[in-house]
């Protein structure tokens, strides 16, 4: 039985590009899916579940990437990751509806000024 494949083009709309923190968010999102998920920038192919791999894309503002997923949840994976791109890399806590069980601890600043 052939695996399901989904492909879409995504664009980096964050002025800072696909920076390290965004790359971490991306890998966390991609890892929720069973499918193999790739991002392709010309000759560079990256595993969307590996932060080191994603950083090798060097994707700045306006970079167009091919998003490709292979697996049983390929369409859902591409949909979720593409939306995350078009929304400009929202952070986890800005998308509380994505993971209602995930409530990051918010500790009040202690006002320390380390010297």
């Amino acid at each position, binding site marked *: 039985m052939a695996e399901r494949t989904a492909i879409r083009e995504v664009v980096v709309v964050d002025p800072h590009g696909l*920076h390290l923190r965004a790359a971490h968010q991306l890998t966390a999102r991609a890892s929720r899916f069973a499918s193999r998920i790739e991002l392709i920038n010309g000759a560079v192919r990256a595993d969307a579940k590996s932060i080191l791999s994603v*950083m090798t894309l060097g994707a700045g503002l306006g970079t167009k990437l091919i998003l490709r997923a292979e697996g049983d949840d390929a369409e859902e994976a591409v949909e979720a990751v593409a939306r995350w791109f078009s929304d400009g890399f929202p952070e986890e806590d800005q998308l509380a509806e994505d993971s209602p069980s995930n409530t990051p601890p918010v500790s009040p600043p202690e006002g320390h000024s380390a010297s």
Partner: protein
Amino acid sequence: MKFSDFICPEAIRANLSAEDKRGVIEELVEALVEAGQVRAEDKASICEAIMKREEYGSTGIGRGIAVPHTKHPSVQKLVGTVGVSADGVDFDSLDGEKVRLFFLLVSPPDRPGDHLRALENISRQVRDETFCRFLRQCKTVEEIQQLLEEADNNQFVS
């Protein structure tokens, strides 16, 4: 972008003495000060900015590697350095491992592209376990400089 485009050779540290996150950051920023890459009066502000960035999520990206960084208006171009810790430092890494290899970057706020290209270069090189193993084994600044030069000449990445 190559290491030689953003790593200041004089600021490289082969034997980091710091034993915690803040200590390592201060040691590497001090190295940039001593190398004349950042002003001494900006050191505290740069260290604070890097620590602030760490609060949003550790730059310890796993496999014993961290890329602490910040934008800072005091620099006119991207400056960076490399540090190696023999014992490793707890850096709240994504995989929980201690960090032995540090790539610290300070970039001008208006040059996000350069910062990305530096990260791209670092990521590409450290994905090669041979490069990481050699870097961990470096005992002197000269050995690190030579290793980075070899990496720039595509000795590790095909």
